[in-house]
């Protein structure tokens, strides 16, 4: 059976907006997906497993995510699984039987679009480019990377969303953006750019929370201050950045914004709500 993608996309977009409203989120604001799930009564567990991205279990309202994936990808997958929750997906099946069953593409498509709009509301993306006086129809890779950081998604997730859902970048521009690897972009921004966890904030940053892991590098604008033992401020006159050094909650205070930074253990296995709990002295 042919799927009516336009109809499905419209439904998923509406559902994402309803959920944002339920969470009392403004239409343009970034979302912390783990907090959102918790507020909606959905448990998120990060698992140290490599062979799956994520799944949703209906009876226990639980999302399982692989912690062995880059941050942006985990966030998108969590939004995707929250889409399955919103649509009450999940079939009562014997697991052995399920393993042999083909995936239900309609459900997966809905969940992907739901996640895209929940995490990257078009008004928010447009505003992020407008605030910085960047052309949304012709952005540079670093500009897309910066806006992706603000919405806690990967570079690929944002370019895909801007091209296929928002339709604000043409195919030729999409191809140009896709031809540059996130690794090359990270390297152009920071000397240790091979690190998977690079977050770029600037003077226009508009997210109240930053989720990072130990070892993450957060590029910051001039004149910021930090609070909390989990963070350290390093760099030179030219560029400053903040390192996540130990699990915990800290704060970055800029001249026009401030954000809480939650630093979690890398490859963490456990309930998402405990991921940034400080270690205790033994």
């Amino acid at each position, binding site marked *: 059976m042919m799927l009516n993608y336009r109809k499905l996309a419209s439904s998923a977009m509406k559902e994402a907006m309803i959920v944002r409203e339920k969470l009392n989120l403004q239409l343009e604001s970034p979302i912390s997906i783990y907090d959102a799930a918790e507020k909606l*009564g959905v*448990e998120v*567990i*990060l*698992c140290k*497993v*490599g*062979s*799956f*991205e*994520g*799944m*949703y*279990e*209906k*009876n*226990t*309202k*639980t999302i*399982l995510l692989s912690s062995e994936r880059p941050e942006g990808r985990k966030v998108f997958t969590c939004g995707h*699984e929250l889409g*399955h929750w919103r649509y009450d*997906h*999940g*079939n*009562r*099946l*014997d*697991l*052995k039987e*399920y*393993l*042999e069953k083909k*995936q239900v593409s309609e*459900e*997966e498509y809905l*969940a992907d679009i739901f996640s895209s709009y929940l995490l990257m509301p078009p008004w928010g993306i447009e505003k992020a480019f407008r605030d910085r006086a960047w052309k949304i129809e012709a952005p540079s890779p670093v500009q897309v990377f910066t806006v992706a950081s603000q919405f806690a998604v990967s570079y690929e997730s944002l370019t895909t969303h801007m091209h296929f859902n928002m339709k604000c970048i043409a195919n030729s521009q999409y191809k140009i953006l896709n031809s540059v690897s996130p690794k090359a972009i990270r390297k152009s921004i920071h000397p240790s750019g091979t690190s998977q966890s690079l977050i770029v904030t600037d003077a226009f940053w508009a997210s109240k929370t930053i989720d990072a892991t130990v070892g993450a590098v957060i590029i910051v604008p001039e004149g910021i201050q930090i609070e909390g033992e989990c963070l350290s401020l390093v760099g030179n006159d030219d560029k400053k950045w903040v390192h996540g050094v130990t699990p915990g909650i800290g704060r970055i205070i800029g001249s026009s914004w401030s954000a809480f930074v939650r630093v979690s253990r890398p490859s*963490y*296995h*456990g*309930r998402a709500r*405990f*991921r940034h*709990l400080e*270690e*205790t*002295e*033994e």
Partner: protein
Amino acid sequence: MPDKEAVAARLKSAREHAGLSQGQVAKLLAMSRPSVSEIEAGRRKVSSDEIKKFSDIYNVSIDWLLAVNTGGVDPVVELAARELAKLKKEDLDIVLNLLGSLKRNK
């Protein structure tokens, strides 16, 4: 009567799956770390009040913690997932153990 050793083993497993150290659990439940350690070693009796508290912070069912159903994990689950066929045997075991232990009907 719940088997003391089985309960102790499940408490340890639930704590690890919740992502907590013994010290963190002690802090969250206002207990001493040696108490948590003794309970998990099966050397100290655990009260019903404590079981309830452990069940809450680990998000596991009390029945599972008390090892009431020792017949293994129910493999019937209601899943929405992609590419399950790629799941490795050891990862599948982790998933099934987790799902079998969690609180239901929230």
